[in-house]
């Protein structure tokens, strides 16, 4: 019973959203507003159950973690954002999260985004037993990376053999990459539609398995 009602309600709201394709209407507007309220309400419960209660209140009331008052108070400063005269106090917790996050991120980004990628770009063009299309692929990969980097190089005009031709090849490679992204994006959007149709035809109407 619970499941049946649930699926009917779900199907109703699914169709409510699709009605937007025909025309904007009150049912769509209702669905749109509901989702904003529910998702934030859900997050509130979750944060309370997973952080505020077990990591702040319980240790505090257990009495041996008084130090946790500091992050608690720092967090409460967010509220000052709503009192214009002391709104600047809300910058403190933001600064704490922002600064430490930036600091932690720096070496790790350097490692994952730069050094690892640099290392992986240094591959031999040919190793014994490689089919021709892989060798050709490696050539495209190395020269393509270089050319695309030239395209994003702002200190020199895109003229001459190196910068001119390089950036031109670069933009071609970038366009091939974007073409792939385009194709995959189309695939992704269709997949989401497929998911909904499976829900409507299968879970709701039982027309398909």
């Amino acid at each position, binding site marked *: *019973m*619970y499941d049946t009602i649930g*699926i009917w309600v779900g*199907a109703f*709201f*699914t169709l*409510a*959203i699709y009605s937007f*394709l025909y025309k904007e209407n009150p049912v769509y507007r*209702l669905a749109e*507003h*509901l*989702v*904003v*309220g529910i998702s934030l*309400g*859900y997050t509130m*419960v979750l*944060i309370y159950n997973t952080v*505020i209660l077990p990591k702040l209140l319980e240790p505090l009331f257990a009495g041996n973690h008084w130090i*946790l008052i*500091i*992050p608690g108070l*720092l*967090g409460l400063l967010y509220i000052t954002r709503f009192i214009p005269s002391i709104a600047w106090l809300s*910058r403190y917790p933001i*600064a704490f*999260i922002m*600064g*430490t996050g*930036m*600091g*932690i991120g720096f070496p*790790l*980004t350097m490692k994952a*985004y730069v050094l690892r*990628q*640099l290392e992986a*770009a240094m591959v031999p063009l040919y190793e014994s037993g490689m089919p021709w299309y892989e060798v050709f692929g490696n050539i*495209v*990969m190395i020269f*393509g*990376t270089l*050319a*695309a980097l030239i395209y*994003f190089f702002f200190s020199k005009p895109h003229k001459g053999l190196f910068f001119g031709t390089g950036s031109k090849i670069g*933009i*071609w490679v*970038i*366009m091939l*990459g974007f*073409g*792939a992204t385009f*194709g995959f994006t*189309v695939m992704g*959007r*269709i997949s989401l*539609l497929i*998911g*909904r149709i499976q829900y409507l035809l299968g879970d709701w109407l039982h027309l398909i398995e």
Partner: protein
Amino acid sequence: MKRTVPLMIVMVGGILMMVQYFIPHQYSQVIFNNYLEWAPIVGAFALILGVGSLTRLHTHKIRRKAQNWQYSWAVLIPLFGMPLFALIIPQSLGGGSDVHGVHDFLFMHIQVPIQSTMFSLLAFYIASAAFRAFRAKSALATILLLAAVIVMLGQVPIGDVLGKWLPNTGLWILRYPNLAAKRAIMLGVGFGMLATNLKIIFGVERNWLGGAGK
């Protein structure tokens, strides 16, 4: 006090965390472990900002009877109903275990279908845009569209049926030219992120302070 202290917090915090990475010593670990304990607590309160501004926006709408103000109730009621049902009256609808409460019903059978459907609207828009806006206006746009068509055909079973070269070419584009483009972008973005990290830590970039008075 209003600008200097936050900027100092950012700088001290940032440098401390950066240096900490290179020091394996136990003192540095103690700082780090404390930080791991504190950060989620501070971060959790950020939710107040979201809840607060949403409540303010919609109560204003209701009070001023602005256009479509009735719908604001559809935001406010579940916003405060969810915690009410989850924490204070977590009773079950279907009997038995706690998974079948009102709170879970709202999430599983309203939130999930609506959000999934919202995104699937894009499938319709992509079809429409394919016909009305995706133009091979220039050489570059033409390459892009050609690559897209090959990849699109290569990714679905019918590509295999049309000819083995289709999926193979699609995969080749993905594995080599696409990789080169994405790696170059990644390196560029990586440097961009690193530079932004530094600019924020050293107070060159201060936009994040904005919006709370001078």
